[in-house]
Structure formats: C-alpha cells, structure tokens
C-alpha cells in the first residue's frame, strides 16, 4: 500500500518524527520467537494467514499487515508485550473483535497487533452496587446476559453487540439505538485498568462515578486505542425497564417523519429509542422478508418508550402519538406482545442487511446534525444522491441526529464510484455547516483523519494533540489515528467507505 500522507500535517500539533512503517525484514529478526518466549507459543500468531486476517477491520478500504499478532491472557501479558515493543521501537495496535468502521484496529505502520480475544472473563459481579468488573475482550452482549437474571443490563447496545468487545466499545465510545435515553458507552464506565503506551499498568476512576480529580476515564473513552490498551473495566449496570412500549409510525412524506422527531423532543419527551427508516430501506426489507407497510409509506419511525411505571410510559407514548398525528402520520402500529415488538423492529434491525441484496456495493456514511435540522438535511441527502445519479436509503438514529445515508451503486463503474465519493463528502460538509459532527459513532480512525480540520481549528487540534500527549508522547501506540499530524501514514486508496451501519 502507498505510504505517503495526503493529509497536510497541522503545524505545531505534537510534532511527530517521520514515522516509517515497521519493516519486519529490516527489523528484529527474532520477533516471533521473542514474543513466543514472552507469552508462549499458543499466544502468538505469525505468517501469511495471520497477516491477512488482521490487516483491516470492518472498514476494508485501507489495509496494512501486522508483523505478528499476540493473544495475551491477562493485563500482565499485555504489559510485557508493550514493553517489548517499546524497547525495540515496534508499533503496536490493540484489537477487539475488529468490527470497527473507521480503521481503528488497522496496524497502520505494521508491527504487533495485540488482540483481546482471550481477555473474556467477568472478574466480579456486584449486584447490590450494580456494577461489574470485566476483561475488555468480552463481547458486549455477554455482559448483559450475565446479569439478566437480576433485572440488570449493560446499557450501550451497538448493533454489533453480539461480537463487538467491551474494549472496542470503550475505545470508540460506542452508541446504539437506546443511546438517546441511556447515553453512550462513556456514561457507563466507572473505572479502567490500562497498559499505558510505555507498558506501565495504570488505573483510572474507580468503582463509582466521580472523584476529586480530572475525569481521565472520560478522556480515555473514545480515544480509539491511542492512549493505551484497556484490559479491565468496572462498568455500571442499569436496571432493565419494567415497562416497554414500542410503536411503528408510518408517514407518507419524509418531512412528516423528520418534523415528528424534533417535535417529540420539543414536547419534553425523550423516548428510549427513536429510529428512522425511509422507503429505500422498506423496499429492501419487503423484498427480503415479505414484511408489508401501509400503502404510500415514505418513512417509518420506530419509537420506544420505557420506564418503571405504566402511567408514566403511557403518558410518554400518548405525547408521542399526538406529535405523530399532528404531522399527519398514516398509521401507528403498537406492539402488544414481545413477538409484535420484534416484528416492529424488523426494518431497523435487518434493513442494512436487506440493502446488501439490492446492489453490488453499499456504502454508509456516519455524520451528526442537530436534530432540528433533520428535515433540511434529508432534503439535501436526496438532492445530492439524485445529482450524483446513485441510489440512497436512510436508516438511522434520528433521535440523536445521527445520520447513516446508505448509497447503493455498482463499484465496477468508476464514474459511479467517483460520484459516490463526492456525494459522501458533500454530506459530511453539510453536517458541519449545520453545526454537527463528522462522526457520531464510527470514530475517526484513519478514515476521517482528513476531515478533522473541517470540524476543528488548528488551535483545537493542537489542544487535542496535547491531550493525547498526556498519555502518549510517542509514535508506537496505535499510530496514524485520529489526528492529522502524523507523516508517512495511510494513503486512503479510495475515498469511499467500505461498509457501515
């Protein structure tokens, strides 16, 4: 892959030396043997198949092969590997399940991938205090499964939750459909144990929120593995709501649905989930699963309210219904049973998969706008797609203003690829024009590094460089991510995003 940097480094932000990709041939010839000596044979993978399996995450556009992959069993072993890498100037990158969508776990300069695959233990469950200590390689959903019997769960619920790891969730500050009410991952992390970029084992935060110090845990969450490798975390457990009401409202105009979203919030109601799907998604879902929606439906809103007492939840749902009706909704289907609820969620949960059947390539973007701007933004998305002559469908966290426009096209046609690239950039720029963000949940990774200067000034980025330097003054711990200050990094092969949710 090409190694020249297309991103102009920002003057003055953590000047980093020219970083060379780690060249195993020129580097230390005994790398694998050394790692085996440190961790044992069963914990080290090397060779072509390992290199290929770990050369990218779910953002498959950019790839870079590691020289070796290690599977440590505990914090100490992670620290040993990091210290070894530091001693020999070998870059290292943490990896969870590899479901990241911005190339965060990509070993951009090669070196060692430190996988948390074996760090899957729950170390302590403390039901009275509603918290749990777990290793960070455990899948998100296993955390909730472990305490379901006690009426508790780990609230962050990314769609990838059956495989995505706690460490990956912390690093990306993952959200999900229920983020609107329950908040992103950082709101559920009480304390972390981390191997810092020099290989020292450190802890931050504790067993409950707050403390008389800077909120370092708040900084570590969302830092995409660039501040160290988190090996264990105390997480907050949230009671499962006793009452859940789910509705699916259909609208014959996009505007009707988008105005409803802002209207619900303006009324002082925050549903647990408020998700939107447009007709492009519905067509795909209908074709794939035979589900039908009211004739003339252009947009659906999946709305879920939850809480502990029926009266409050019903009152919220009533408020929601009124806003839907005032925006001329066609129909509101309410779930009476758990099976109904699953059915109403079908379009949301299976929409993107169904899209995959419609076109050779789909590309999903991730941007955020203030939700009151949804009507204007969606008009813009459709116009851009029409101008670019590519198909677009939308399935997204409307309540959070977190868009995922999904383009479908034929990537064998260079003209279409070019149009999709340009359309994507136009959309992200529009998000910023409207006061939003370049990413709501996929992260910056390598994918969006060159968009950072659109959102942040040079002074802002310098400050971010300083924040990174609190923990990571060097260039070895997950290099080439987040900040556009690093030379010799990844040249994006194509400016379209591989896949996404």
């Amino acid at each position, binding site marked *: 892959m090409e190694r020249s940097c297309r991103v102009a480094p920002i003057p003055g932000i953590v000047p980093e030396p020219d970083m060379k990709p780690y060249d195993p041939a020129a580097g230390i010839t005994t790398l694998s043997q050394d790692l085996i000596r440190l961790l044992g044979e069963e914990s080290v993978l090397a060779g072509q198949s390992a290199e290929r399996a770990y050369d990218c995450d779910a953002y498959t556009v950019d790839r870079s092969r590691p020289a070796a992959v290690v599977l440590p069993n505990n914090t100490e072993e992670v620290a040993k590997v990091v210290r070894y890498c530091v001693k020999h100037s070998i870059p290292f990158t943490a990896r969870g399940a590899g479901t990241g969508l911005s190339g965060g776990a990509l070993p951009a300069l090669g070196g060692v991938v430190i996988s948390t695959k074996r760090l899957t233990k729950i170390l302590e469950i403390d039901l009275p205090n509603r918290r749990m200590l777990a290793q960070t390689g455990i899948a998100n959903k296993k955390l909730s499964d472990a305490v379901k019997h006690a009426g508790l769960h780990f609230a962050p619920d990314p769609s990838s939750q059956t495989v995505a790891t706690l460490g990956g969730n912390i690093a990306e500050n993952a959200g999900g459909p229920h983020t609107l009410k329950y908040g992103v991952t950082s709101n559920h992390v009480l304390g972390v144990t981390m191997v810092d970029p020099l290989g020292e084992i450190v802890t931050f935060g504790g067993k409950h929120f707050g403390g008389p110090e800077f909120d370092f845990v708040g900084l570590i*969450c969302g830092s995409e593995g660039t501040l160290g490798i988190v090996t264990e975390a105390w997480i907050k457990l949230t009671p499962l709501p006793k009452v859940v009401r789910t509705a699916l409202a259909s609208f014959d105009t996009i505007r009707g649905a988008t105005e409803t979203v802002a209207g619900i919030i303006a009324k002082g109601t925050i549903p647990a989930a408020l998700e939107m799907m447009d007709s492009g998604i519905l067509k795909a879902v209908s074709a794939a699963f035979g589900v039908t929606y009211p004739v003339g439906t252009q947009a659906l809103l999946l709305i879920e309210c939850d809480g502990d007492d029926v009266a409050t939840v019903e009152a919220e749902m009533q408020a929601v219904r009124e806003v839907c009706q005032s925006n001329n909704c066609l129909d509101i289907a309410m779930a009476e049973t758990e099976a109904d609820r699953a059915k109403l969620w079908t379009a949301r949960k299976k929409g993107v998969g169904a899209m995959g059947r419609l076109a050779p390539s789909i590309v999903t973007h991730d941007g955020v706008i203030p939700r009151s701007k949804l009507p204007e933004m969606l008009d813009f998305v459709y116009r851009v797609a029409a101008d670019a002559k590519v198909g677009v469908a939308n399935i997204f966290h409307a309540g959070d203003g977190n868009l995922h426009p999904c383009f479908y096209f034929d990537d064998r046609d260079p003209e279409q690829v070019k149009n999709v690239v340009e359309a994507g950039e136009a959309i992200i720029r529009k998000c910023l024009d409207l006061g939003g963000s370049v990413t709501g949940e996929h992260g910056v990774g390598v994918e*969006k590094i060159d968009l950072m200067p659109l959102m942040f000034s040079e002074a802002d980025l310098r400050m971010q460089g300083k924040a990174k330097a609190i923990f990571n003054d060097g260039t070895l711990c997950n290099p080439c991510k987040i900040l556009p200050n690093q030379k010799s990094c990844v040249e994006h092969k194509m400016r379209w995003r591989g896949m996404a949710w």
Partner: protein
Amino acid sequence: MVALPNTLESIARWVAETPKIAVPSSQGWGAPISPQAVGVDLSTYSGILDFPVKDQIVKMRAGTSPAELQQALAAEGYCLPTLFPDLQPNQAPFEPLARSQTLAEAVAFGLPHAREAQTGSWREWLIGTTVITGDGEIVKLGSSVVKNVAGYDIQRLMIGSRMSLGLIVEVTLRVFPIAALPKSSLIVVREGEPGAIRRVLDSDFEAESVKPEVLAHDRNSGTVWLESAADQGPKDSWTHQKGTGIFEGDPVAKWMHRAKEKFDPHAKFNPGVWGIF
C-alpha cells in the same frame, strides 16, 4: 477580584497578558490559591447564548448562574436534572448546584448531586466547552450535538479540573425534560454546614448514612454529607472536602501533573488549587 472583558477575543488577550489567574470556588472548596494570582469574578461573564429546545442542548457563557439557567430551561419544560431548583428550604446546603455561583464552577468541581443514579452527571451532560489557554488561544472542545465521537473528549477532562487546565468560558450542556424527573431521596438528618461530601457504594450506604457526623444522605446517588471529614470512611469511597482531595503520591497525581504540564505549562491557572500544583 476583576470582571472579565465581554468578548472572547478580549478575554483571550487579557489571559495572555496576565501572569497568574485565580478563579476561586464560591463555596470555598479546594486548597487555597496563591494570593499573587489575579482573582477573576467569572459571574461577570454570563448569559445564555443559545437554547434550541428541539436539539435538547443549551449553550451559555460560563459565568451564568445555575438559577438563571434553570429558569430559562424550565420555561420550555427542561432542566438540569439535579434537585435544584425544586429544593425544600432545608435541602439547599446539600445541593452543590444551588451553592455554585456559576455553571463553570459546578463543572470544574464535578460535584455529585442527588439524582445522579437515574439522571447521570457532568460526563453525560457536558458536550462541549470553550476554553482559553494560558497563551490566550480560544479553543473549542467537544461539539454542540448530543452525539459526537470526533477526536478526543477533552471537554470531559475539564470536569473536576478546578479551572487548573484552562479558563472555561463557554459551556454547552445536554438538558433533560422536567416531565421525566425521577423522585429524589435526599434526606436531611440535621441542619448544618457540610464540611465534606462523600460518595459511598450502595453496600456501604446503610452503615455510612447513620454515622453521627452525617448531616444528610441520598440513597439514589450514594452520597452522604458530613459535618467534617474527620474520619477516613470506607475503602472505595471518595471524600470531597474543604481542602484538596488529591495528594502527592496518589497514583493519579502523576497523570494530573502530566495534564497540567501539557495544558498549562506556565502554571498560570489557579496556582495552588490542588495543593499539588
């Protein structure tokens, strides 16, 4: 105490020219700040800048008082979900937000409140800040949308920073509908001036809340207010008292020093505030 100039640019110039700046706590929290520093009355820089209700956010100057903020939010059915302003008269001493003169101070001290278990705290509410660095640069941290994962969340590092990393001049918060406010469980045991706030685990709560020095307790957030912080309290609790709360030798002190070196290399802001800087 000096008043701040009334534009960001002029504040930035003033900060760049002033060698040491103190933004003391209106509650007397924190170790004493060096008397050589010029004291700033942040409440002179106040006012709500934007409150787009549909976006569930509010942006304000950092010196805005909690009372002014809550009033503006309430007019649209929103609030910051602490007990304030719906306090019983005897609860006021036990609600840090009611005692903070400015929003920035409430953020900078990251104090607990009585509805924390259900409605979260500053880490959830604070989505962006504008900060002036010691060199007089105006820096935006975070964003102004409720969901954002672009770059490092430095605005969260300002929580608990006691203004020692930079001068917080604007604050953007996520707000909460009043209709969904849960009940609180703050109980005032006896009137008095709290000398310390302690956060304890639920499992220690029964034992801690009946101790004689306890003035008030709140089950939901696991908080007890003490007349003074004479005893050590249970392992795993933290105590925030009139004093520092962090000591040299604390493992976290090393990282606080590193953050200070990076963000405020000339030790301009609140010299002395931690007792460690």
